[in-house]
């Protein structure tokens, strides 16, 4: 028979290993599995434009940021013109401390995305920023639910999804990607893996994209 001290040590080690394993597993499960690099697309990204194209524009943005709305319209113009020759993805970087509804808006797009209406909700939210951003959080949520109804999204499912862990994790993964990438403002653009200075106007944006397309074709 083993000594009491040895037995105590044995069960102490077993307990520590089990607690360590449970903690490790919990951490692994709660850390977003794939924190994307700001410079690369992942399979989790929603794509607008031509998914086969080598010209990739990634935007880190915040739905409640007024400057981001201006760039939303610029990006829409760019995609209208060059959509066949480039692909665009939007990543969430809600500036939580100054924009109290930005995270919820991001989750609303993810909830709509679960029903295949990511980009439709993205447009609704940007185009109506002036309406929902002045409301309290609950009011903004009701507004998003209204947009969902306008977009023929199953409302019951949308309400369930908007505050789900799944939507939270999707937004958090992109937020962490921005933080780890050292970003501190929105919008921030990456064109073909390189951070670009925000173009002053549509013409400057056009030139940047046109150059990238020409470069990709040569």
């Amino acid at each position, binding site marked *: 028979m*083993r000594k009491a001290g040895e*037995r105590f040590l*044995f*069960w102490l080690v*077993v307990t520590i*290993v*089990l607690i360590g*394993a*449970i903690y*490790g*597993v*919990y951490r*692994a*499960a*709660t850390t*977003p*599995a*794939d924190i994307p690099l700001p410079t690369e697309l992942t*399979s989790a990204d929603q794509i607008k434009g031509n998914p086969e194209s080598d010209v990739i524009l990634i935007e880190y943005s915040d739905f409640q940021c007024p400057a981001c709305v201006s760039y939303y319209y610029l990006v829409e113009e760019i995609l209208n013109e060059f959509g066949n020759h480039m692909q665009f993805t939007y990543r969430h970087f809600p500036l939580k401390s100054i924009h109290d509804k930005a995270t919820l808006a991001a989750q609303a797009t993810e909830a709509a995305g679960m029903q295949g209406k990511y980009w439709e909700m993205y447009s609704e939210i940007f185009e109506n920023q002036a309406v929902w951003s002045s409301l309290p959080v609950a009011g903004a949520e009701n507004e998003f639910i209204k947009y969902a109804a306008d977009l023929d999204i199953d409302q019951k499912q949308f309400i369930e999804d908007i505050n*789900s*862990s*799944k939507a939270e*994790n*999707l937004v958090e993964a992109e937020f962490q990607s921005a933080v780890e990438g050292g970003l501190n403002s929105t919008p921030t653009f990456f064109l073909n893996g390189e951070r670009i200075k925000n173009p002053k106007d549509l013409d400057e944006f056009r030139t940047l994209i046109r150059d990238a397309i020409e470069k990709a074709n040569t």
Partner: protein
Amino acid sequence: MKKLIPNWLIWALAAVAFIGFVDASYLTAIHYKGAELGCNEWGSCNEVTTSKYSVIFGIPMALMGVLYYLAILIGALVYIDTKWKLPLILIPIATTFGFLFSIGLVYLQLFVIHAICIYCMFSAGTSTTLFILSLIYLFTRPSEQADICQ
């Protein structure tokens, strides 16, 4: 006293049960967090883990796996510590049920859900290994009679 089970075999049972415990715990944590499984490269994990078969009588299948592997692990450790025979009787019974259950779950993935979850297949692998280790024990153990004669 004659050993009822070789050291390597009981430690192997404990080690494999521990690996199964970690795997099932991960699936359980994912279930309760509602998070995405990071394994889409290898298979459609989420299709399996969010299917109607992932919960039985309100209990997530993964949680049952946690309890199963933990029971085997504790049983093996209790034997290592005390040399009490009861875990050696219960472990082969439990691992047989675990193995049969795993066959059912693999069947569901392949032929009903038509998607494979790598973590679930891994768990099927660990429960099969536990079953094989139990068989090795059953077929190589010294008989009770011999034990008494000594």
